[in-house]
């Protein structure tokens, strides 16, 4: 067992699960989407991105690309949330909630791709 692989897999899957946890639920109801879960998703996604730095293989490059997409989407969702709560007069209206959650939904897709890549990598490694 390789400790590096454990940590890597942990963060990749953790990023996807947190993202999913935030995303799930009615898209326009703010009380169903906890902002701390979004915060945790951003942090874990950033860590997963950094963990993918410096891998020179083809699959490593795709890994990094998916993580960058997910991080960017989640950061965009956080910015929309910060704007809605601190700047906008209407606060977390159903429309803004929907846009925050749908942005995180895009990130979830990238995270799923990441998890699939991880699985493919593991399976092909065992076949060798």
């Amino acid at each position, binding site marked *: 067992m390789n400790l590096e692989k454990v940590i890597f897999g942990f963060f990749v899957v953790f990023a996807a699960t947190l993202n999913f946890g935030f995303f799930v639920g009615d898209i326009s109801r703010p009380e169903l989407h906890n*902002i701390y879960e979004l915060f945790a998703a951003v*942090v874990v996604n950033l*860590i997963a991105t950094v*963990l993918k*730095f*410096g891998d020179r293989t083809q699959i490593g490059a795709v890994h990094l690309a998916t993580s960058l997409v997910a991080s960017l989407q989640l950061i965009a969702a956080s910015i929309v949330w*910060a704007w809605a*709560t*601190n700047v906008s007069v209407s606060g977390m209206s159903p429309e803004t909630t929907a846009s925050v959650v749908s942005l995180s939904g895009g990130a979830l897709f990238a995270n799923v791709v990441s998890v699939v890549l991880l699985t493919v990598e593991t399976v092909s490694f065992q076949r060798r």
Partner: protein
Amino acid sequence: MGNPLLLFWQRMLADQQRPAPPRARTRPELAGPQPSATIFLILRRMRMPLIILIVIFAVSVLGLSLTPGQDLDGRPERLNIFESFYFMSYTATTIGFGEIPHAFTSAQRMWVTFAIFLSVIGWAYAIGSLLALLQDRSFRRAVALQRFVRAVHRLREPFFIVVGHGAVGQRLTRSLDAVGRRFVVVDKEDDRITALELGSYHADAPAVVASGSNTRMLAAAGLNHPRCEGVLALTGDDEANLAVTMATALLRPDLRVVARTGSRAVAERMEAFGAPDVINPFDRFGDHLRILLRSPAAYQLMMWLTSPVGTKLPPPREPLPRGRWVVYGQGSFGTEVARDLRAEGVDVAVVGPGDVDAFDPDAVLGAGLEGASGLVAATASDTTNLSLVRYAASLSSDLFLVARQNGSANSPLYRALGVDLVLVPADVLLHEVLARLVNPLLLPFLRQVPHQGEAWSARLVSRLTEGCGRTLGDVWRVSLTAEEAPGLWRWLEAGEVTLGDLLRRPEERDRQVAAVVVMLKRGDETSLAPDDDVVLRPGDELLVIGLQSAQRAVDQTLHDEATAEYVVTGRSVATGWLWRRLAGRD
């Protein structure tokens, strides 16, 4: 991946147009070091510091947003995540705008104190790691290598790869630089590469610290580059030179190789791979002695023409005495010299220890030093050679003394002792390499010089010094083809140009440019030092020695029809279209 459609068509048509299997060897793939390696190294090393920074930031922000606070009226209110992110951003980066949006409670201040120390540690660790990475030896090597690979890749002019930048390499690169040739340097020693950087060369010379026997590094130095002209293996290590010769012969058989060696066995092994120019300085020095025995003027001429540009004419020498010679030292140099002297019909006695380079006066006397006319001190030890020369000089004052100099720092000692002829392997090598690189016509010319006799060589030396001074000018080639001599072509075809016409000054045809044609090549025949009344024919090639201004003047005659007409016939013709029309030409 290629275009799938193309692939499809290729498969469809494969039966009809299957290409014949290549019989000639294709150029092998040569993988040099990857240029993007450094950025990956940085990213990989910076993983941990970056993750720690992210975690510290996340903990601080989360903690601050959870710590109880109050608003201006004392109602309990916590900072939301955006506000605490904002606060932590300016606190961690030491900007410090104060407590925003309201004054903090004691609980918040406690958390912020903790977070400040935490973030200081995080930043210190991250910046420290980055600085350590920049200082890291392997990292700096990777950066230097990357820069080198890029510089080689960008070369757009023909260049040589010089492996070994020692005494010979440095003088050679300087000479190449002086005549405007490009080169890439590979050497094991850090100092020698630094010497190249400090040397203020005209052209930028990519250089790398690496062993030439490493084929990957040769690839990085441009072995596979389409502009690479040749490889010069000039290290002091025979094995390394052999490895370079082999690698080049196997991977790029079309390239020229000039390799240095000190031993006949290695030379034979080198010659088994392709057709390298193998230079054995000891062997060549023996040849120089033979030329000196036959004709001192030829020796003077050859040494001068193979010197770097701007070298003064070496002083003329007395012919070597043809009496009995004593060679002290049985190493490879002693044997080579004795063989060459014997080939000239000179009586030679070889004495001295084989491997032990000790000074033994009795052995020299036993070989009959008294009554001999020349002595060669050929051991690999400078102290032994110096003792030997001093001892021999004390016995007889008219003995011709030849000594082998081993350490380059010892040349003042040999000069002070008054040795008649000193073998400096680096000098011999430099002459031989320059003879091969400066001009493709130079070597065929030099090969014929020793057979022309003393009087001929002396006449050519005086012609050269009268024509273009006592310092060596450029050596260049003139090809009288339609491409390279378009201006002169009409007269060449008519057979109206003599050699003397070509060398007339474009501004004043009664005077000659400062250049001398030393060889005329017509087909397979060559004539040395042709006279001025020789009629030039299309396709002739000339080897010319002269000043740079002369080269420009001759180039003008070759390219510009009006200049050519003036130079050949003495008529000044109009160059403009209108005046040419008016004059009734074209």
